[in-house]
């Protein structure tokens, strides 16, 4: 069994799975139950001057039969007295000395920061997470994402924290910014050893069409909130990867946050440079128990790859994340449909017809019918291979026209039966590897059909 223990810039944790600063880490009894279930660490619900919360607080984005694909909340930081939280943190750390306990903090003035850092560290907490991410309620008061969106302010507060803190400082960033590198670099300049991201995405989840009030509704009004859950995972992966590649920030420790629901999600964040991952929405949906599968799944995965420690996985995919201009223009894929598992729904065909390159044909049609359907290139031979699935009588396997297929993946993505449409590599049309940046370097970055003004600018306009 692979070693899952981590050292997060000095913070030791038995595994990389931490509860994010959120309702699942609101109180001592909760965090202790989570540790008993297997969580390696917890970032306590953000401390500060206690707030007053509203009812209701959450709304979710369902998609088809999937509940809570995304979750939106308008809850603020902790509404419990500071002393109560501190006392419980002390108890948790005393009873679980080997687990990672992080205090999340959000206050206003320098004196506030000095005071709360001292008090948080006096509980025995292993580290501090500065909440520069909350995009609702607190930012209007000049805190949370209001700081994360102002690199200079972020840098200054980071310096204060570094001055007062004895334990590692983690800067939690908001995704609600044009370029995540700016706050990330500011955190690095401020001297922080670690970054966690992303906090929630500013959002307005929907509208009650009978009352004309957005959701979640507080009486006859609502407000924008923070969006999280599986829907935001790609945004989080992108933003963290920006920083784990950035020469000015890649030396820092990263705690990945955003839609992590299972071991696979966690492994992806780790492969892109995370040392720990933080989870909220999946726990709010299914409870602390999900960590069993996360630990077991990650450990088995590492074993299957011959890795003895989770540290061997960290950053393995960073190198392959490159800019568009460095992608190989000669790489070529074609779609292939497996006649053994196709059920004959033709979803690939409609997606390709209307959303891609009109390269999937339904056999049995006449030439005229293919033309009428919208095909501009019709192969001479369109084999009629019956769909084998039970009950699919009279249906034929859709046919891929390799001449038109650009290998975009769309059919593979819409196919409801995993493994039925695969993308196979075929020889490229250029004959050798070539990137757009190669073409730029050689002055060949002009394609046929370019605008006159562009050709003129490049001195290529034939007189």
């Amino acid at each position, binding site marked *: 069994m692979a070693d899952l223990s981590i050292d997060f810039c000095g913070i030791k944790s038995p595994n990389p799975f931490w509860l994010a600063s959120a309702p699942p880490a609101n109180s001592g009894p909760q965090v202790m139950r989570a540790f008993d279930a297997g969580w390696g660490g917890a970032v306590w619900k953000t401390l500060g001057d206690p707030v007053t919360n509203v009812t209701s607080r959450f709304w979710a984005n369902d998609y088809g039969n999937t509940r809570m694909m995304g979750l939106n909340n308008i809850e603020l930081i902790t509404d419990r007295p500071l002393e109560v939280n501190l006392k419980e943190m002390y108890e948790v750390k005393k009873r679980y000395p080997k687990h990672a306990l992080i205090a999340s903090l959000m206050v206003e003035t320098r004196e506030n920061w000095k005071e709360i850092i001292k008090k948080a560290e006096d509980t025995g907490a292993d580290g501090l997470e500065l909440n520069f991410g909350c995009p609702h309620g607190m930012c209007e008061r000049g805190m949370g994402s209001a700081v994360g969106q102002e690199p200079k302010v972020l840098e200054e507060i980071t310096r204060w924290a570094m001055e007062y803190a004895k334990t590692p400082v983690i800067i939690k960033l908001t995704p609600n910014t044009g370029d995540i590198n700016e706050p990330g670099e500011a955190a690095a300049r401020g001297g922080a050893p670690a970054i966690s991201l992303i906090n929630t995405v500013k959002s307005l989840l929907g509208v009650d069409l009978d009352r004309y009030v957005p959701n979640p509704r507080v009486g006859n009004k609502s407000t924008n909130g923070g969006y999280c859950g599986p829907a935001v995972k790609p945004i989080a992966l992108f933003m963290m990867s920006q920083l784990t590649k950035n020469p000015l920030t890649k030396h820092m420790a990263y705690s990945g946050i955003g839609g992590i629901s299972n071991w696979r999600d966690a492994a992806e964040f780790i492969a892109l440079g995370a040392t720990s991952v933080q989870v909220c929405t999946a726990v709010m949906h299914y409870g602390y128990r999900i960590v069993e599968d996360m630990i*077991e*799944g990650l450990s*088995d995965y590492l074993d299957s790859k011959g890795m003895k420690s989770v540290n061997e996985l960290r950053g393995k995919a960073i190198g392959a994340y490159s800019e568009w201009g460095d992608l190989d223009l000669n790489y070529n894929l074609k779609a292939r449909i497996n006649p053994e598992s196709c059920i004959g729904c033709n979803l690939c065909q409609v997606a390709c017809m209307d959303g891609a390159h009109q390269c999937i044909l339904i056999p049995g049609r006449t030439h005229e019918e293919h033309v009428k359907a919208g095909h501009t290139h019709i192969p001479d031979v369109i084999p009629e291979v019956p769909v084998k699935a039970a009950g699919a009588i009279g249906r034929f396997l859709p046919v891929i026209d390799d001449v038109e297929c650009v290998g975009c993946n769309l059919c593979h993505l819409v196919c409801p039966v995993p493994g039925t449409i695969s993308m196979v590599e075929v020889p490229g049309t250029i004959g050798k590897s070539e990137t757009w940046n190669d073409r730029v370097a050689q002055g060949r970055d002009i394609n046929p059909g370019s605008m006159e003004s562009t050709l003129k600018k490049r001195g290529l306009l034939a007189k």
Partner: protein
Amino acid sequence: MHPLPVLPDGRLEQRFSESKPAYSTAEAVTEANRCLYCVEAPCIKACPTGIDIPNFIHKISTGNTTGAARTILKENILGASCARVCPVEVLCAGACVYNAWGREPIAIGRLQRFATEETLETKSMASLMPAKKLPTGKKIALVGAGPASIAAAGLLALEGHQAVIFERKSIPGGLNSLGIAPYKQSGNQALEEMGWVFGLGDVELKTDVSVVAGQAGKGEVSTDALLKDFDAVFLGLGLGADSKLNLAGEGSAGVYGAVDLIEKIKADPALKLDNVRRALVIGGGNTAIDIAHELKLLGVADVAMVYRRGVDGMSGYVHELASARKHGVRLMEHRVVTEFLAESGKLTGVKLSRAENGKAVPGGEETLSCELVALAIGQATATTMAKGFPGLVLDKHGNITVDPKTQRTGHAKVWSGGDCVNGGKEVVNAVQEAKIAVRDIIRALGAK
């Protein structure tokens, strides 16, 4: 002892296709994602072995199939068999919350089959179980190589004990290898799983050995010898021979006990049914439904179940009867056989009488030609052999009496589980009883 026997080719069992074929990965993950991942889930409560079903299904959905197998095997060491043979319709799937919502319950059996088969194809069972403990030097005898003893032997082996199984037949496995309907599980599937379990530790299988009370002859071991040579004894005897009606002509060729006939279908290449045009099955339990269903699927033109009461009085599962009838099995209610007709010792037909309250009444007698009759009216119970263990008590049905908290019999060194205790239930019940017994055997041997 290894390797275990493999059943020969040419058996009728090999003609069957699976009623619930194995899922592909895509099918399994899609079905797993339909599971609500309930808390305090009714499916767990409905499982006699208490498998954490939502947990293993969640693991399938995340691609953690190995973890899913671990979760299953942790509670049910014969989880692969049970995945195929459990009547999930009346157990876990029958309790699924989707039923209450009018939606198709989760296909728990097929998901369990996917997790166990997929994993055990490439990984040893030992790699999925807690590490085997150091040898204790303690020896436990297990009598009868049915699912109760197999499960107990595996669990005892993991504890570092030596398990020695005595089986009177040549083919081990009991009803799990010789009695399960072939469209659910083949004999070789059961034997393969047995090999995995025996691989967990020090398990020895002695076939063609009968345990007897009193003086042991050739191919026999006495109960006294077991008590003397072993630290504990587990009785997983199963049930005995098919019961008889004791009617005229019952000894004719073509009249079978149902359990015996199923065993021949599964294990005996010599059995042929080519000249059987009509087969009658006497009885209304699950064995009766199984053999009727099997005969129909084997191509017998007319298969009828003859039952002495109405359909509501049948003890067989409603879903099994519905499935058998869908495939063409007929049901003759309120009928009893009164005589077997034979020519030159070969069955040619039966005399039937109308029945009220399960008893023959005058009027409505008829003669029906048939070439085969299967008697599924119960099985004998253990056994004169059990009397070889002083203090062991049989109840009025002939079942071994145990303390259900420990599965211990009236003899301090003897535990028991499975059909010989519960009167004839499922493989999953045998596993659970074996689990309880092993827990108590470990405690008892540790206390010495």
